[in-house]
């Protein structure tokens, strides 16, 4: 066999084990690796589940029950976790100001007075002014909308595309699975920022869509691997085997039995990925290929403020802080959800 | 007495409260003697052993009170560095799962030789030669060639032999074997057990054999201590217990062994589950599962009764026991109704 002999037991904490593919799924940057690793710990072989019974209804009940109790246990755990509460409140606040930025600001982010350029904090303008004389506070508030939009939509696209492709590949296996694995290898081999720089440098549109499109294009293999892995794991559960033995159709097995139990790792990875996409948008905007003015984005503002960093550091620090808090909130949320879903830690 | 554990209490701090894993255990082992400690998982038998070895995870574990007197010294009063020198050299431990208990990335020769390097200050080369000798001693074929191999390259029985060799390396006075054969195939179990018993006789070591397998116990043990919910419920010479247990729990254990002469009958099983160590029932911890429980069992913790009447009941010559009773209570039971149990 030209396969590496499987280790008799998995090394604990292994970020990755040697594999068949040519490429490891690292290389997306530390935060993405973090997401992957956190997700993988949730893909574990079936524990001693409920005993196999002989009616399909029972098998189904077992699958549903397992998933249900996992989520309700997780929810109970989460409500007691201060990290989760803080992160969730921050995210709710961000969503709120993205939808109604006018509720805490009273100016337009595009109304700037050059005469006030680089001025510091003053009454009515708590964060001061940036290099163009725009109010930093207003721009930071409006920047949240862009970041949250890009983050949510990119994650949604990545999660849908990745989990559908990965899930189907994992479920059916065979040639399609091999082809998909090779394709994900190809995407992993391209450095993300570099790909963005090349692809987005041609785009002249100043909407958020090209950036979201790019993130979906380069992000889906990540989720696809996770989804594939967790579907393969879920497939081995006794109740799934039982349902198949009883002649349940493919779609029924996949939807009723596998999806509820395979979705946890995808959600965890997607949550953490959401934070990294927001960070990636800012990085691309900083490099001048992401979003373009007049779109208001933290990345653009940080980039614009960097030449004046000496005289007006506040114009750089406030959007940077907002960016960091946002990314942190999503990573911590993902972390907390993972901890809650991991029965081993309880 | 080589080792004497006196009134040991161990507890674990957990998120949901304090789990009292060991609640006043006392037992002793002489040189050349084999004590079998019997009990279900969670009865505190392994925790007691780990406390003796000094390898409890602290925290969350904590030795609340008690003494562990080994060769006249209370180990609990020693400094960690002195304690370390005792471990491995004067007392050693054999674990249940040899595959996970051996370091996967270090060759067995180095893992064996390490004992000599650390405790005896030998060179690596000499230590390796000793490792080969040890592997020969536990009858691992082609020891010289296999000394460089890694644990996963050996079979389960061979791995457990290596664990035994490691424990024997410095000829300790006491060996604690924690379920040494549980993870092995039945055919290999006997070989490994025989090897252990043989080595024990040869070096005149004290052996504490932790197990839940009564079959193994009957063959090799001199005495038995039965543990339940962190206490010793019955302690006796091995043949006495098999003839007539003086505690309902022991009786339940013995009755649940499948026997050929009772083929076709329903196998006996003790009802219920072991108690939650965070919330041990008042009175006798076994009372919710005991078929003969009375009101007093639910309120009063039974003391350790000395089982004396057993002599007549089991027909063993009274003279021998009289002599023994002067040293220590030869047979004890923590049941208010041990007499009824003994005769029932």
């Amino acid at each position, binding site marked *: *066999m030209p396969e590496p002999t499987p280790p*008799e037991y998995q090394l604990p904490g292994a970020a990755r084990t040697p594999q068949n593919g040519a490429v490891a799924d*690292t*290389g997306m940057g530390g935060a993405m690796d*973090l997401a992957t690793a956190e997700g993988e710990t949730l893909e574990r072989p079936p524990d001693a589940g409920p005993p196999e019974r002989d009616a399909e209804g029972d098998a189904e009940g077992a699958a549903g029950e397992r998933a249900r109790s996992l989520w309700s246990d997780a929810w109970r755990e989460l409500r007691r976790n201060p990290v989760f509460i803080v992160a969730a409140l921050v995210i709710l606040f961000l969503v709120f100001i993205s939808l109604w930025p006018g509720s805490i600001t009273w100016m337009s982010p595009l109304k700037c007075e050059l005469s006030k350029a680089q001025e510091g904090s003053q009454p009515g303008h708590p964060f001061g002014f940036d290099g163009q004389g725009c109010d930093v506070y207003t721009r930071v508030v409006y920047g949240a909308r862009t970041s949250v939009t890009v983050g949510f939509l990119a994650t949604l696209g990545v999660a849908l595309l990745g989990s559908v492709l990965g899930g189907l590949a994992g479920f059916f296996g065979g040639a399609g699975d091999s082809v998909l694995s090779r394709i994900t290898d190809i995407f992993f081999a391209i450095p*993300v920022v570099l790909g963005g720089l090349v692809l987005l440098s041609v785009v002249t549109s100043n909407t958020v869509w090209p950036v979201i499109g790019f993130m979906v294009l380069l992000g889906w293999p990540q989720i696809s691997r996770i989804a594939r892995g967790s579907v393969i794991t879920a497939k081995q559960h006794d109740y799934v085997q039982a349902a198949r033995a009883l002649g349940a159709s493919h779609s029924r097995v996949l939807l009723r039995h596998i999806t509820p139990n395979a979705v946890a790792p995808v959600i965890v990875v997607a949550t953490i990925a959401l934070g990294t996409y927001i960070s990636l948008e800012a990085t691309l905007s900083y490099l001048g290929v992401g979003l373009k003015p007049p779109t208001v984005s933290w990345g653009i503002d940080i980039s614009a403020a960097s030449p004046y960093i000496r005289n007006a550091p506040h114009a750089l620090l406030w959007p940077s802080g907002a960016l960091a808090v946002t990314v942190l909130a999503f990573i911590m949320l993902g972390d907390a959800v993972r901890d809650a879903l991991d029965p081993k830690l309880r | 007495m080589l080792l004497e554990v006196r009134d040991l209490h161990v507890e674990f701090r957990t998120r949901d409260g304090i789990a009292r894993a060991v609640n006043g255990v006392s037992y002793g082992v002489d040189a050349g003697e084999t004590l079998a400690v019997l009990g279900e998982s969670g009865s505190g038998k392994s925790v007691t052993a780990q406390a003796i070895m000094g390898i409890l995870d602290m925290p969350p574990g904590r030795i609340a009170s008690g003494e562990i007197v080994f060769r006249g010294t209370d180990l609990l009063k020693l400094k960690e560095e002195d304690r370390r020198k005792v471990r491995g050299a004067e007392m050693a431990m054999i674990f249940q799962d040899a595959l996970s*208990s051996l*370091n996967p*990335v270090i060759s067995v020769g180095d893992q064996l030789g*390490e004992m000599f390097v650390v405790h005896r200050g030998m060179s690596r080369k000499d230590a390796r030669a000793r490792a080969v000798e040890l592997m020969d001693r536990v009858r691992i074929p082609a020891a010289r060639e296999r000394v460089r191999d890694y644990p996963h390259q050996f079979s389960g029985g061979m791995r457990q032999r290596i664990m035994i060799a490691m424990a024997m390396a410095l000829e300790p006075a006491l060996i604690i074997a924690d379920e040494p054969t549980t993870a092995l195939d039945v055919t290999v179990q006997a070989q490994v057990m025989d090897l252990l018993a043989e080595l024990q006789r040869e070096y005149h070591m004290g052996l504490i054999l932790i197990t839940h397998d009564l079959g193994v116990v009957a063959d090799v043990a001199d005495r038995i201590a039965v543990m339940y919910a962190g206490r010793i419920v019955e302690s006796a010479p091995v043949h006495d217990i098999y003839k007539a247990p003086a505690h309902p729990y022991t009786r339940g254990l013995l009755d649940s062994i499948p026997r050929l002469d009772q083929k076709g009958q329903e196998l006996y099983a003790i009802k219920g589950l072991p108690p939650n160590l965070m919330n041990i029932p008042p009175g006798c911890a076994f009372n919710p599962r005991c078929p003969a429980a009375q009101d007093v069992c639910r309120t009063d913790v039974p003391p350790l009764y000395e089982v004396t009447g057993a002599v007549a009941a089991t027909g063993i010559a009274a003279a021998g026991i009289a002599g023994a009773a002067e040293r220590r209570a030869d047979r004890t039971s923590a049941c208010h109704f041990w007499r009824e149990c003994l005769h029932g």
Partner: protein
Amino acid sequence: MGRYVVRRLLQMIPVFIGATLLIFLMVNVMGDPVAGLCGDRQCDPATAAQLRKEFGLDKPVWQQYLTYLGNIFTGDFGTAFNGQPVTELMASAFPVTVRLTIVAILFEIVIGIVLGVVTGLRRGRPVDTGVLLLTLVVISVPTFVTGLLLQLLLGVEWGWIKPSVSTEATFGELIVPGLVLASVSLAYVTRLTRTSIAENKRSDYVRTAVAKGLPRRRVVTRHLLRNSLIPVVTFIGTDIGALMGGAIVTERIFNIHGVGYQLYQGILRQNTQTVVGFVTVLVLVFLVANLLVDLLYAVLDPRIRYA
């Protein structure tokens, strides 16, 4: 082992072709490669057509790609916007980025592993919680923000370093940029090491080592570390490729004339040859690093055997 390497090398071919093709297509979509060749002036149509023919740009894209691939194997990476062969640019840029990557990797190894071991051994104590929080913050702050802030503080405010790196880019100058480049991976290495140490600390073989009466130092260095560092070493190995590709941001901030800088220039000037050439080499580095890591894995863990 030999067969495994061959099989892996064969597997790398489609990935290599796919990745370069992807980049090639992206760059072709990117714009008119000829436009950049006439410098900053607008090319007149006749010259443009002439150039197009000369570079084979009038042919279909797939044919261009094959020609390009063929040229690469003869060591011809084409010409950059300023008329220099791309290989010459590479010769000047790669050593700089390699130095930067080495500095970053050293930071990951030294700081990441030390912090990870310290926190893993003291799980739940204040030092652990503190470092854990710090790693989350470092992961959350995008590299370019970290870079700009360090540049502001160390370079401008306190004057400890020069805010931008000279063209020689010596190791000394690259310390701070290397730290910035490493920062996110560094935090990840810390977390990975911590998890690995904490898990292995509870393992049976560590308990055996303690029961053998080994001194604590020996238990940690000989038994615990060797096992715990296997995943960490493999992560750092695969990170090499990622760091070199991700250096573009750091190089921009500190004005380092490495791979990222050349790539950025290539993209600005819409020079296909430069961009595809550099990306091709980066992809190769990434693939080879991955292969080496898997082979290293087998060396570190005797349980893994490749047939």
